[in-house]
């Protein structure tokens, strides 16, 4: 099961440029006494062609970080770069185009449009952009997620795992620079999770996709190249080439209060 990770440990040969970067990112909800700093000065890079997991206790700001990175929400201060673009400076119109053309997003609750078929849901971002799907790429994606026989079904005729695979396909079909996934396996059982995760892994290995994924699950984290730990709105740790055991150990360490000020690497 970890073969993919191991195989990848030789490091992707292509580029090591940064796909997304947060610089001293702060996000404060509410005002005055009721203010909550969901992100409290987060600085983190996500390398292109890498599969990164973001982990942390509930309420640590993982979703908020995803939303800010994916241009779904605006930060209170700090900067977010996608490639070379500082998205905190963009207006709504440019952000919309950015989301449409450069970013894919997978939600925990699938979020498919109930009135559209699986195929139509997958093609939705292209339809919005008014682009024709690249047939070859579409077929590749559909085959990778193994949904060919289900394309004409409506979401309510699909299982949770199938629905999430449709959502993943939707995120990938427009060949975005980066895909964000917020607990994509949160609602799935272990078998369905494995389907989705190996699909994500494959798209990184075979198509050099960049993926950032929030998860609670050490086993899911083990599919990734790197795990970033958040706590209380701050990056507290990270692991490269994680295994489930190492992740679990690290999680225990963090929750026992032995918070390391610097990354525990080395």
């Amino acid at each position: 099961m970890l073969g993919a990770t191991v195989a990848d440990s030789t490091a992707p040969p292509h580029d090591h440029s940064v796909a997304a970067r947060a610089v001293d990112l702060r996000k404060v909800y509410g005002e005055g006494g009721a203010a909550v700093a969901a992100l409290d000065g987060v600085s983190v890079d996500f390398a292109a062609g890498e599969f990164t997991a973001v982990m942390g206790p509930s309420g640590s700001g993982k979703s908020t970080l995803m939303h800010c990175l994916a241009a779904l929400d605006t930060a209170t201060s700090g900067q977010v770069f996608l490639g070379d673009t500082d998205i905190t400076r963009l207006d709504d119109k440019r952000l919309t185009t950015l989301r449409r053309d450069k970013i894919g997003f997978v939600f925990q609750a699938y979020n498919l449009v109930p009135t559209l078929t699986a195929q139509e849901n997958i093609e939705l971002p292209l339809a919005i952009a008014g682009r024709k799907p690249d047939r070859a790429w579409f077929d590749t994606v559909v085959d990778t997620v193994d949904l060919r026989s289900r394309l004409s079904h409506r979401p309510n005729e699909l299982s949770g795992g199938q629905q999430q695979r449709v959502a993943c396909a939707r995120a990938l079909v427009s060949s975005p620079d980066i895909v964000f996934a917020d607990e994509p396996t949160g609602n799935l059982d272990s078998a369905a999770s494995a389907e989705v995760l190996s699909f994500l892994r494959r798209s990184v290995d075979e198509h050099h996709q960049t993926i950032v994924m929030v998860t609670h699950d050490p086993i899911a984290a083990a599919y990734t190249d790197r795990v970033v730990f958040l706590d209380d709105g701050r990056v507290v740790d990270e692991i490269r080439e994680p295994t489930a055991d190492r992740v679990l150990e690290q999680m225990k360490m963090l929750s026992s209060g032995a918070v390391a000020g610097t990354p525990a690497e080395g």
Partner: protein
Amino acid sequence: MLRITMRNLLARKLRLVLSGFAIVLGVAFVAGSFIFTDAMSGAFSGIIKGTTADVEVAPKGANDFDSLQDRRTVPAEVVDKLAGLTEAQSVHPYNQQQGVYVIDPDGDLVGGSGPPGLAFNYSDTVAITGEPILSLTEGELPSGTSEIALEESTAERAGYGIGDEVELVTAGRDPTMTATLTGLMRFGSAGGLGGATLVIFDPDAMQELFFTGQDVYSGISLTAAEGVSQEELRDAAQPLLPPGVQARTGDDAAAANEAGVQEILGFINTFLLVFAGVSLVVGTFLIINTFSILVAQRSRELALLRALGASKRQVNRSVLAEALAVGLLGSTIGIAVGYLLALGLKALFAFFGLDLSGASFPITLRTVLVSYAVGLVVTMIAAYLPARRAARIAPVAAMRDDVALPESSLRRRLIVGAVMVVGGVGLMALGFAGEGEGGLALIGAGMLAILIGVALMSPVLGRPLIYGLGAIYRRVFGTVGSLATQNSIRNPRRTAATASALMIGLTLVALMSILGQSASASTDKAIRESLTSEYVVSNVVGAPFSPKIAGQIRELPEVETVAQFRTAQAEVDGSFAFVGAVDPNGFAEAFDLPIPGAVTALFRPGTVLVEESTADRGKYEVGDTIPMEFQGGTVKLKLTATFPPGALPANYLVTPDTLIKGGLEPLDSILFITKQPGAADADLRAAVEKITSEIPTVTLKNPQEFAAEQKEQINLFLYLIYALLGLAVIIAVLGIVNTLALSVIERTREVGLLRAVGLSRRQLRRMVRLESVAVAVLGAVLGVLMGIAFGVALQRAIADQGIDVLSIPWLRLAVFVVLAALVGVLAAVLPARRAARLNVLRAITTE
């Protein structure tokens, strides 16, 4: 994007139907009005063309479609001269008489009240349509004064067959007469005369009965010889005619008559379109509400689209595209329903004597274009605000469970609403100061602005009412009551918008009933104050009758004086003048006109008395000379006094000789009778009724009964308006059904939860019903209050035009509110059933 929109529409057929309904009804009203007036104008145009020959010769202004009975005639020598023209193939002199009514075997007037009763002599004239004007279809032509033929539809409606003795009421020599029916005739090629009845006499009998036996004619129709144009024939005929008699080409005559008819039809069209407008405004509220709810329900989905990269414009446009589709479909169905509505109007107007049974109801290109334009524009306007709001949904909302739509603040609505109310009041004030149609339009616009302003403010204005109702609900219905109250408070905008639709309908209903009641009260007052005669003889519908009646009554020993009141129409300075004529002798006994000085001194032949507000508007002063243009010529009159409004059923009062100078046949409309001192009431009644009994519509009454008869007319008009406003109220009720149904869908989860914790189906239904009643009562109370405000303002404004008593029908208004509550109960039936049928488990697990 378009596909998502279409999918959405199809996936939610019920919503589509509900939101489309408002458009359907509004557009149906517009289309129906046009189709109906087109049908009328087609029918009348057919009648006009079917009675017009190549060239028509008649005294100028006489015998037109909208002319009164003319007393001017063409002497028989003229016929001989015209017969010598080589340009004329044939010459057809004719006589015509208005006020000849057929009495059916039950003793009732055929055609009821309203449509004219006509008599022609038989002739074989061919109309410009190429068809004979009259053709015998059955039996024989009548001869002598005791035989008649009837036009087919007239005979059919009366139920007479050949050989029957037919009773007639006439405005001629004999007030009533009996004649044998010898034949049936077809009029023109189209069946019927739009509800008018037609009696056909032999030419000599016509002169004998209606033209004191002289050899004179009402007019002469000419048929052109082979190869001679209408113009050539006219030019040849004109030099042979005596002064004042005119030859017109058939085309000109038909065009002039059609223009006259169009004027009346245009008025009816405008009248109907006003109601269509009301329905559309109400419909707009319904659509705004429906789309707002749909957007709210889809906000998560819309947020998802935004998260996937759809721009604000795309989201906005997808909602608008949905509206466009609804608008298109609604307009299409609306046109079809409009056709049915036109048939309904046909039935409604048939009740008022307009018979269009033979008419075709065309759906013209204009009707289609206007209907689509109105339907689409209204839908797009209504969908604009919800669409804009949809575009403001943040993409991150796709991630949340409970998506709240960005709402504009109530404060802003309050301010905008207040500005509209103030602006509306200003417009109304300007309108009252202004004149004629422009003024009316301003008043209408002002009322609309105030209504919309109040609708905007109603989330705040309605609060005390909802809370008050809530207190009652809690006390009477316990938890279910407070849940219902919570539901109506939780979305004040939605509640208010739903209620506003009903409010607009009820405002107008209340306004009209206040004006109607005030008009009735003012009539009472005017009759009480100025009518001093003990008795009145009049025709219910105001159709004139033979002056012979007055002569016979005057002979009675119980009667002291009889004043014969006549009516006519004329033009003064280009505007329509409603003229009354009465003999000064006997007038002072019948009327107590509050004018300075003795009536007999001021009111003589050659003078005119003018109603005050009319004098003000025309800037006429005592001593001025007023030219009054009748159909038969202009008469110059000296203004000697003005009288207060409402005192007489006319704006101008002249002496009878003035009408004769104007070419009009002297026919009476109302007789005012004073009793010989010492005569018994019962004796006088019996004696007069013996004379009037022969004519079904002409009756004797005392001033109270006379007032009641007048008020009956006001009420009849009021019912017509209620019927037309009813459609707006129906739309508003549909709005309540729609909003409730959508709210129930929206609250599926919550409803399931309530059921899961033990709320019974019955309690659930009651909860929905109570919410519905709250909305309906809110709308009704606001509407009635607005109606009272408008009613008082309008009555004050037109006090100088005769409606000088303000009378508010409190009981009736209270009944409206109670009815609205009942409507609320009805509106809740379907949504409540839907809510109660929900599967509990499914409801709580619904996404």
